[in-house]
């Protein structure tokens, strides 16, 4: 049953991605400016502009351009960057590993902080502890992460003479250095995410704890730890998972500002640079890829629902 559902969802990917591909293709052609102009700048002459546009196939009719691009994509060739000549798909994938690691670390940090704190706040409902957790989570939600990132960088540099090492290095090349580079951006993103998760955990656990079945379990003499972890938390996980799924999905599309501040060559940077330079192939390829990842994360969350709550089944 589950497999049939997953297959159905995967098939639905086709119209979604098709729609996204048309949308982004048209968007890039509608915005003013094109790649030939941004490359040549003040050095542009009408002839050199025309020559570059010809080279990139921008002189062809729109439907022809779309078909050429789509034809490539379907056969696994996302084309080359118009700006740097780099192959698009390998670039997207190598940047995705960085964005993926950043997302994973941030999510871990956020869960480590948020879920326990949320549970504690729910258990100690309306006490000083609860109040402080709510304060902290409100801060987490409302302090913009770019502000926190800049303050963090400056404080560490000015008062502790510390700045993260420059030049990204993959985890498998040098794990320690890799973590040093990623720990600060992950902390910033993680604490930001933690705010929302904390609030959700608190209210969701609180709601479950008030339900009859919890009272019944308690009456049967179950230990508090069993009540909280085996019964309350598991039942409270559905809304928490929804919000986590959204956060992770968004983050996997690239944490544009944080990547920029910490000089991480992630997916967000790629898309941002490509948009300002009107590098059509790169923008189109990466947006398509991000849409794909987002849909997959949503699917994963839906599957996890039914694992957490067997009452949910997909027919």
């Amino acid at each position, binding site marked *: 049953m589950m497999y049939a559902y997953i297959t159905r969802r995967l098939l639905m990917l086709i119209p979604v991605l098709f729609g996204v591909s048309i949308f982004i293709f048209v968007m890039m052609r509608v915005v003013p400016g094109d790649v030939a*102009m941004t*490359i040549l700048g003040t050095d542009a*002459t009408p002839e050199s502009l025309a020559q570059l546009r010809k080279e990139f196939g921008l002189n062809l009719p729109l439907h022809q351009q779309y078909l050429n691009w789509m034809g490539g994509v379907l056969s696994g060739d996302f084309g080359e960057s118009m700006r740097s000549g780099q192959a698009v798909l390998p670039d997207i994938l190598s940047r995705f590993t960085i964005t993926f690691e950043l997302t994973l670390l941030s999510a871990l940090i956020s869960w480590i902080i948020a879920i326990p704190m949320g549970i504690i706040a729910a258990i100690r409902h309306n006490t000083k502890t609860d109040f402080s957790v709510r304060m902290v989570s409100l801060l987490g939600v409302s302090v913009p992460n770019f502000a926190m990132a800049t303050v963090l960088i*400056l404080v560490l540099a000015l008062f502790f003479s510390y*700045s993260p090492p420059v030049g990204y290095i993959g985890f498998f090349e040098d794990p320690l250095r890799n973590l*040093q580079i990623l720990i600060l951006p992950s902390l910033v993103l993680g604490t930001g995410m933690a705010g929302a998760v904390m609030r959700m955990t608190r209210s969701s656990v609180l709601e479950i704890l008030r339900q009859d079945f919890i009272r019944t379990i308690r009456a049967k003499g179950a230990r508090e730890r069993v009540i909280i972890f085996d019964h309350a938390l598991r039942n409270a996980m559905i809304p928490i998972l929804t919000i986590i799924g959204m956060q992770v999905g968004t983050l996997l599309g690239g944490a544009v500002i944080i990547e920029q501040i910490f*000089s991480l060559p992630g997916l967000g940077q790629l898309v941002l640079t490509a948009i300002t330079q009107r590098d059509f192939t790169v923008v189109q390829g990466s947006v398509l890829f991000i849409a794909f990842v987002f849909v997959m994360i949503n699917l994963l969350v839906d599957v996890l629902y039914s694992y957490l709550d067997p009452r949910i089944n997909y027919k």
Partner: protein
Amino acid sequence: MKKFWVLVLLSCIAIFTVACSGKDTKTEGEAGEKKPNAEQTLKIANDQEPAGLDPHKTPAASSVRIYSQVYEGLLTFDKDMKIVGQLAEKWEQPDDLTYVFNLVKGVKFHNGREMTAEDVKYSFERILDEKTASHIKSYFANIDSVEAVDPTTVKFTLAKPDATFLANLTHSSAVVVAKEVVEEKGDLQQTAVGTGPFKFEKWVPDNSVTLTKNPDYYIKDTPKLDKVVYYTMKEESARLSAIRTGEIDFTTVSAKSAELLGKSKDLTIKPYQSLEYSYVGFNVNNKPLNDEKVRQALSLATDRQSIADIVWNGDAVISGPVAPSMSDWAIDVTKEEFYQKDQDKAKTLLAEAGYPDGFEIVITTASTYPDMVDTAQLLQQQWKEIGVKATIKQIEWGDYIDTWSNKKADILIGRNGSGTDPDRALNYFFHSTGSANVWNFADKNFDSIVEKGKQTIDTGERKQLYTQAQKELLNLSPNLFLVSPMNFVAVRNNVEGFTPYPHNAQNIIGVSIK
């Protein structure tokens, strides 16, 4: 329960401390080795990612500063903006149309092959080939033929006399490339094989470009560095913190940060006058800017010194159409009629033009560059004094380029590079058929002066012509030329032998690490 969470918290702190302190142990080790014989690696942080490495196709400054270390041209500028030989040992001009260059002997490409006159010929043919879509093709449009006379002699024949030819040869994109590399790779965007002091090693996108020493470089004991790594760090606060803590050795900084960093004892701020100037461009076809009196009035209402003081922190000089760092050609604009702030005269001129109560207008600027936005805001205030009500429209960079090249704005704030020869600053931007004349400006007298200037070989006579052309431009004011900013490079004190100059701000050939 409580204990458990305390434990979790403590272990988090521990992990974080370990992650941060890992670096300290490492640098101690490095520092130990550094004392007797320092590792000759220079770490540079740049604000932009290179846009590609093909010197003939990529004008972006973020690319130029890197490929200039790898490639060389026939000629270059020295510190004082005098033309000197690079790959050309000496040159002569037998007649108005012919230039003969004798190449330095024993120069090798980084792939080991000897560089010959054939390579010079090939490189210029590549620049002129329409298919290359080179941004510097227009600089060399006067070349009729290039001939390799023998392996170390190359002869250029021009179609008509061109006084800008030698200066154009110093352009950082007019460099010699190897034919076999172009043929193998299709173009040179992803690789770089030149004759310069550094060899290209690798480019990790949005991360770093690594160059290594060219051991066969034809100038003895040069370069001193073994390795140069260019990191892309777009955020200025990240670059500042990295140079403070010594993670990087070298970075460009804004005027405001230069002042802050100047207090740090581990680093030195090196200023140099840029070749750029900021301007206000008018679309002279559109009302009311089609009337030169209106443009002159706006010039008189503009307080250039306050733009230098406020926008550039005082680190900018008032400029005309040729930036003052081109000292041989630039005129002293501070005495010019329309550079004196005079609101009464401005109002009179507006009234004469038929706008006694001023008018409303939109100033377009790029949000990408804070200095342009600040300039727009100052002008808005200053012009208000004579009744001109301006609104500011900030647009994103791609949109800005489109607006610029398609002449979509009435008033556009921007910055121009003066180039290497006044012909560029005057002919290219303001001749009625100039490629970068996006102002609809057309003046027959001006056209004939700059046309003559391009063909006049005698320097004294040429200088007179360009002085005349600059005055003509200031009078007609198709643009208001504002100020030419200083640029700043922050360098750690362990970097020796670095002096930036306008033509080569990242001149690292003589640099070593102590």
